[in-house]
Structure formats: C-alpha cells, structure tokens
C-alpha cells in the first residue's frame, strides 16, 4: 500500500452568514434582530492522497475547494471529521505543519513586492529556520530549476505575472515542503507561460517527489499535470477517479465535425446527436456504444464531405457535464 500524505475523514464545515430582509425596513429590522443562515461549505468529505501524487481537486465556484484547502493547511478549524497531513493534525499543530507544507495562491501575493526575489527567498529561509549556507544552496538549486537567473535581482513589483508566479512557487519550496498546495497557480497567464509553469511543476514533482494538491479552473493544468482527479460540488465529492478512467468513460463519445458540399438534413437519432447544424457545417456527437463513426459518416454521405475532423470530447466539456449533472 502506498504511504499517505493526506488522510481526510468525514470532514465538515458550516459557515454562519448574516441575512438581511430586503429594503430599508429590512435594514432597520436587522439592527434589532440579526438573522443567520447556515451554509454547509464542506459536507462529510473523505479522501486520501498518496505521497508523491499530483492530485487535481476541482469544482465550480463555491463548491468548497478553498475551504477544504484552508482546513488542510490549518487556517480554518473543521466542525467535524479528522484531517491528517503528513501525520499531523492541522488543528492542533499548525506551526509544526507549516514546516511540512508549501502554499501558492495564484490570486494572493506572498512575496514582498518591493524586495528582489533573492531577498525574498532569503526571507523565507529565515522564516523556516534554515541556516544561511543551506538557503544559499537551495536558492541556487531552485534558481536553476525554475530559470530565474535573469530576474533574481529585480524587485518583484517589476516582474511580469509569469515571472512572479515562478518566484512564488520557488518561495514556497525553499523549506523543502513534502506537500505543495497550489490554488489556481496559472490564473491570468498566457498559454506559453502556463505551459512553462506546468513543466516546472512536473519537474519538481519528479525530482523532489513533492506531493502536489492542485486546484484550478484551467483544464489544461489538470490534463497536463494530474493522474487523479477529485471533483467536489456542494461540499461533497461527486467524482474521485483516475484521469485515465475519466477520459475512458467519455471516450466512447466522439465529436465529428464536417464541412459539406451540399446541405444535408439530419435529425437526432439513436446514438447520434446534432450539436450544431449550419447547413454546410455540421457538428455531431456519436455514441460509439450504439453507432459506429463509420455509420455517422455514411449518413453524411462520404462523397458530400469536403473536410472532416473526428475528435474526443474535450476534458473541459466532460467536467462541465459532471458539474451540471450534479445540480
């Protein structure tokens, strides 16, 4: 059996949110009597993560992802259930846990913007009680791995977003954490930089065996990095499967896009769904458990086809389908 980096059992967290009746009257009323509504952000969540694994933990906005991460990192206290991160209970030993984990929140800066990346790394080294010699060695190692040479002495405020995120990740790796929590690390980045960040995360995982707990709305991140995916919605797990399985289940559906010489009149039939029909341009979904792609092409009449493209359903559609199904 694989060693576990994270074990979560029956985790729940409820928030109390103030509620006010609408309008002026409601405002007056709320002064004397405050109403609260309970929101179950996380509801009986159980899962575990192997050491060295890269896990995608995804879900629509408000699904409970961030709340879960915050409970795993000791920021929030769970109402119920138990959490063990590297064998430590975050609720009881938050400081001890801090030495074992690194966090990168794509939307929050943890670097000192007026200092250079180098000064920042030295700062984080001191925070994690690492001696100067070891920090220097570590900075050099990470500088090479994340290709920071060009801007390591430029104040962070003058860096591009891509450069800054690279530095954010390096800063969170200074103390050699066993687990890295990445919360939307590629948000706002251009495709080339995204790709670059993904490659670096992969390389880091391979070389240091760092467990990566990733949340992202970017399907590319999930597809390129993760072997396993957990989808949460309404605070509960709706899917916990390997990426391979997830794709396999949906792989029996193919998308056929065709450009026609002449207009064709097609209707939905068993195993074939028309997704788009613009006369000369067609997009259909073929359920290969019921009909073959060949059948679909025959329906279109091969002599009538100018161009054709057959593809799998994009992961993005698979995921949004799962989100919708759970509504």
């Amino acid at each position, binding site marked *: 059996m694989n060693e576990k980096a994270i074990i979560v059992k029956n985790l729940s967290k409820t*928030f*109390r*949110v103030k509620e006010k009746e609408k309008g002026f009257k409601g405002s007056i009323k709320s002064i004397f009597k405050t109403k609260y509504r309970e929101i179950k952000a996380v509801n009986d969540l159980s899962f575990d993560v192997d050491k060295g694994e890269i896990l995608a933990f995804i879900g629509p*906005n*408000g699904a409970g992802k*961030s*709340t879960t991460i*915050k409970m795993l*990192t*000791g*920021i*929030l*206290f769970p109402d119920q259930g138990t959490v063990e991160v590297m064998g430590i209970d975050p609720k009881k030993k*938050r*400081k001890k*846990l*801090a*030495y074992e*984990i690194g*966090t990168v*929140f794509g*939307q*929050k800066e*943890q670097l*000192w913007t*007026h*200092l250079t990346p180098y*000064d920042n790394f*030295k*700062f984080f080294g*001191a*925070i*994690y*009680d690492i001696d100067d010699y070891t920090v220097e060695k570590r900075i050099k190692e990470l500088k090479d791995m994340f290709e920071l040479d060009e801007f390591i002495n430029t104040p962070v405020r003058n860096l591009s977003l891509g450069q800054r995120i690279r530095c954010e990740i390096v800063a969170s790796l200074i103390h050699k954490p066993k687990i890295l929590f990445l919360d939307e690390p590629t948000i706002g980045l251009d495709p080339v930089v995204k790709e670059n960040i993904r490659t670096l995360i992969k390389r880091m995982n391979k070389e240091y065996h760092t467990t990566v707990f990733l949340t992202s709305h970017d399907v590319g991140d999930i597809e390129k990095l993760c072997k396993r995916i957990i989808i949460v919605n309404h605070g509960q797990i709706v899917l916990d499967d390997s990426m391979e399985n997830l794709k396999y289940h949906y792989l029996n559906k193919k998308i056929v896009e065709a450009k026609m010489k002449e207009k064709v009149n097609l209707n939905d039939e068993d195993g074939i769904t028309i997704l788009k029909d613009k006369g000369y341009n067609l997009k259909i979904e073929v359920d290969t458990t019921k009909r073959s792609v060949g059948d679909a092409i025959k329906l279109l009449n091969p002599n009538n086809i100018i161009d054709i493209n057959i593809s799998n359903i994009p992961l993005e559609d698979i995921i949004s389908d799962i989100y919708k199904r759970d509504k």
Partner: protein
Amino acid sequence: MRKYLYIFKSEVMTNMQYIFNLLVGFISYFILIFIFLNLWKYIYSDSNELINGYNMNQMIWYVIITEILWMSLGGRKLCRKICEDVRGGNIAYNINKPYSYIGYILSSHLGSVVVKGSIFTILGMLLGLIFLGKFPHLTLFSIIIVLITSLLATIINTLFVIFIGLFSFIIEDANPFWWLYSKVILVFGTLFPIEYFPGIIKTILSYSPIYAVSYGPAKLFVDFSIPNMVNVIIVQIIYLIIIYVLCLLIYRKGVRKLNVNGG
C-alpha cells in the same frame, strides 16, 4: 527570534526605498511644530518662566519628541491594514506560516517605524536647534535611556494599535476605535504634558498608557532624573506585558471563529 529580526530587516529594506515619501510627510510635522512654537512663545512672556514646571524651551522640546513618537508610528495605516487583513481574509495567508501573526505584524511594523523615526528624529532635532538654539541638558546616559524608552513606547503603542485592529474579529470595523485612541493620545499625551491637567485627570493619566507611550520618553528628554527613569521603565514593562497578553487573547479567540469565505 532570528525570523522576526529578518522580518524587521526586510521591512527596513522596503522602507528605505521610500525615503522621499517620508520627507514629504515631514512637512506636516514641520507645520505642527511651527504652530506650537509660536503658540508657546505667545503664552510665555519670558522664556525662563515656569508653567507647571516647564520653561518654554522644555515645552517645545516636549512637543517635538512626542510628535516624533506619534508621527513615526503610522498607527492609522497599521490599524487599517489589520482590519482589512481580518475582514478580507488575508490573515489566512499569515496563519499558515511558522511565525506568530502578532510577532510578524509587530516586527514588520517596527521596521517601518525605525526608518521613519530615524529620519524624523534627525530632522526634528535640527528643527528644534534652529528654532530654540540649544538642546535641554543631556548626557550620553540620558540619551541612551531616552532612546530605549522611546523604543519601548513605540512597541507598546504598536501593540495597542494591533489590539484595536484585532477587534475586527468581533465587530465589523475597528477603525472608529482607532480614531478615538488617536484623539485621546493627541490631546492628553502629545500636545501637553500630564502636569498641565487638573487633579483627578492628572492622576488618571499618570497610570494610563499615555504615561508609557508618550509622556515618559519626552519627559526624560526635557527633564531627566533617575527616579523618573525608574518610574517610566517600570510602567512601560507593566503595560508591555498587559497589552501583549490582551493581543494574544483576542487573537486566539478570533482565529478560532475565523470565517474565510470564497476564493
């Protein structure tokens, strides 16, 4: 301890990039001192006359020192930052680091106060010398004691601001408390020494934090005496312990009920 020194050092490094901004802030300091200089010159018919135990020079030096302490504190900014940290959930990103939030805020804020305080001290002393022509009677020992008590005053004052800011855990916005605090310090601790107030108020002020954060170091600068020094340091240590414990209590209670919503 090393990590807090590093936080302090990083904040000093950051603030050193904004020396020019600090000089701009000095303009309002200059105006205030100038107004008080003229006011006291008008009140004192003779500069050697004593009012409540202070001659004119001592009075003006008193205001110069208390204003250096107050203006280099930057309390409003700190209070607002803590309120925003607590309300906006930013505090979360400090909680999962291996340091105490109070220690972090205190040491980083001291970093900015030290830079600001050094500039204000140099300029304030120059201003006093230009306007008054001489320092009060000082020795190397008294200068060291004034520096130590000023540092203690700043630490206590910063902890008071942190305490007020952390009230955001309980109420939505703690800034009005800060407003109140700053006005009390301004009237009772900055512009007039404690001796200027009548009977019961004077007694209350002698036991109040104002004695520790403002009056103490300024009094030692204008009129140094060993009994005064012992008094000031004892009061400062007592207040340091009290306010630190209060900060810890409110923080621990607050963090337990912390709600960080959304992203």
